[in-house]
């Protein structure tokens, strides 16, 4: 399993030379003016829901270095998350805050005794964020999470516009059959032919109904219910069905290499959106046809999903940008630039990683890896 949770692991393997200033944790290049500034060293106390959310959020900020996290409960979800992110985990608060030249101690334990203790123990020069300030921070983190959900939904709805051609094709074809048969039935004398054509009409109506069902189910807001165990193979097939409204699959050779019973715990609506997006991108990269490969596997307890195409590929110089919000290579009005950004966020919330490998003219592959605990569902719910 990869040790880096960020979304661009493939970049370092494929880039010809490392960027001048690279963030240690995220692997992202820093703007030149920041290159010389040392990162703010942050210690997190508490690894419950708040600590985990904070960890996920701060980890993405290039000017922050998380020096460690601690929690009195060794089973706290944030500790496992920290290990995945290569953030040191400490058993004792004193070991964490007493070293490393910590600039800021963020206490999200909610324990008043901890707050009092910190004011005595935290080294001079380090700031403490606890009590009401900590609660406000938690509110902000939740707000950020809600905004990301809204953004995901907005991008999904924007994308549905591109379904128009596919929907029209799939609705109007059965309607043509229904109309043609009904016109014929008005004059048909042969009773057997009447029965056959009536049956064809019923089947055509069922097909049309299925289109509406698929799309209304897809376009709804992702449910905010608790995460559930998702069978990945089924979800990929469902995504393929939806994606065909957005992109024409007639000239695409679809290959599936599914390992049976690959599961992950997460939000099924959000994961469906991730798969639809990846498949749509892959097909759009193959303007003149090609092969779309969908693979699933369990490797060392971790679930892997790979969506590959034999399309135009992604130039190396864009690897660092493709997961950034509003980055798109599509013409104006054709892409929101939020697809891969939202994918990254969803995968991140599911404690997974996404890596890209690509060669111009040969194709691209996106590999999502969910760690063992996400596969078995052996982890507490996250916000």
């Amino acid at each position: 399993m990869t040790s880096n949770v960020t979304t661009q692991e493939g970049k370092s393997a494929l880039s010809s030379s490392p960027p001048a200033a690279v963030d240690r944790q995220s692997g992202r290049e820093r703007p030149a003016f920041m290159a010389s500034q040392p990162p703010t060293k942050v210690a997190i106390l508490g690894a419950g829901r708040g600590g985990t959310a904070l960890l996920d959020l701060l980890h993405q900020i290039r000017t922050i270095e998380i020096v460690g996290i601690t929690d009195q409960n060794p089973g706290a979800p944030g500790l496992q998350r920290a290990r995945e992110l290569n953030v040191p985990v400490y058993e004792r608060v004193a070991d964490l805050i007493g070293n490393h030249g910590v600039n800021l101690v963020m206490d999200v334990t909610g324990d008043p005794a901890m707050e009092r203790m910190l004011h005595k123990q935290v080294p001079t020069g380090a700031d403490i964020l606890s009590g009401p300030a900590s609660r406000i921070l938690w509110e902000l983190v939740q707000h950020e999470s809600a905004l990301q959900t809204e953004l995901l939904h907005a991008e999904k709805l924007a994308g549905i516009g591109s379904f128009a051609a596919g929907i029209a094709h799939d609705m109007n074809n059965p309607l043509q059959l229904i109309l043609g048969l009904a016109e014929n039935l008005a004059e048909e004398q042969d009773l057997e032919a009447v029965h056959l054509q009536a049956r064809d009409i019923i089947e055509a109506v069922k097909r049309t109904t299925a289109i509406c069902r698929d799309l209304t189910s897809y376009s709804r807001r992702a449910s905010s219910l608790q995460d559930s165990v998702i069978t990945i193979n089924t979800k990929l097939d469902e995504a393929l069905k939806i994606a065909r409204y957005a992109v024409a699959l007639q000239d695409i050779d679809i290959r599936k290499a599914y390992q049976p019973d690959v599961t992950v715990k997460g939000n099924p609506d959000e994961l469906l959106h991730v798969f639809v997006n990846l498949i749509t991108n892959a097909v759009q990269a193959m303007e003149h046809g090609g092969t779309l490969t969908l693979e699933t596997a369990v490797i060392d307890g971790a679930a892997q999903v790979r969506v590959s195409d034999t399309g135009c590929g992604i130039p190396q110089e864009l690897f660092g940008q493709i997961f950034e919000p509003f980055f798109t290579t599509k013409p104006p009005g054709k892409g929101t630039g939020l697809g891969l950004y939202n994918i990254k966020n969803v995968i991140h919330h599911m404690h997974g990683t996404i890596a890209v490998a690509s060669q111009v003219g040969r194709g691209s592959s996106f590999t999502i890896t969910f760690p063992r605990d996400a596969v078995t569902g052996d982890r507490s719910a996250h916000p």
Partner: protein
Amino acid sequence: MSEFKSGFFMGDQSSNGRVLIMDDEADIRKVVRMTLQKAGYDVLEAEDGQKGIETINAGENRLLLDVIICDIRMPKVNGIEAIAYFRQNYPRVPLIVLTGFPDTDMATSLLRQGVVDYLVKPVEGEKLKASVARAMEQRELAHL
């Protein structure tokens, strides 16, 4: 399929004309065939643009095909590519587009290229027959 008869440039004298329907959906080909056969047309089918091109290039169809009805979204060779081929190689064979997706820009462009009609599914049998009849008139005028 009807037999080849004399009347070289008037097509098969036993039918009202020979029509090729190109659509990847078998159901669409079926109802178009049903409608046009009842109106006395001889109907050929092709499941994509490539098959359509093969059909028109096969034997007597080069000379006897009167009208082509063409879908847009098809595998291998799509409708736009097939229409370009027909306009270049068989400019006298009238073309009717029968598509599931109403696209004004595409309709305008295709009509400018000489397509006789741009029909959006679902289309009534009477309208389809009227369109084919108009195309047949154009076909006959082309032979004068």
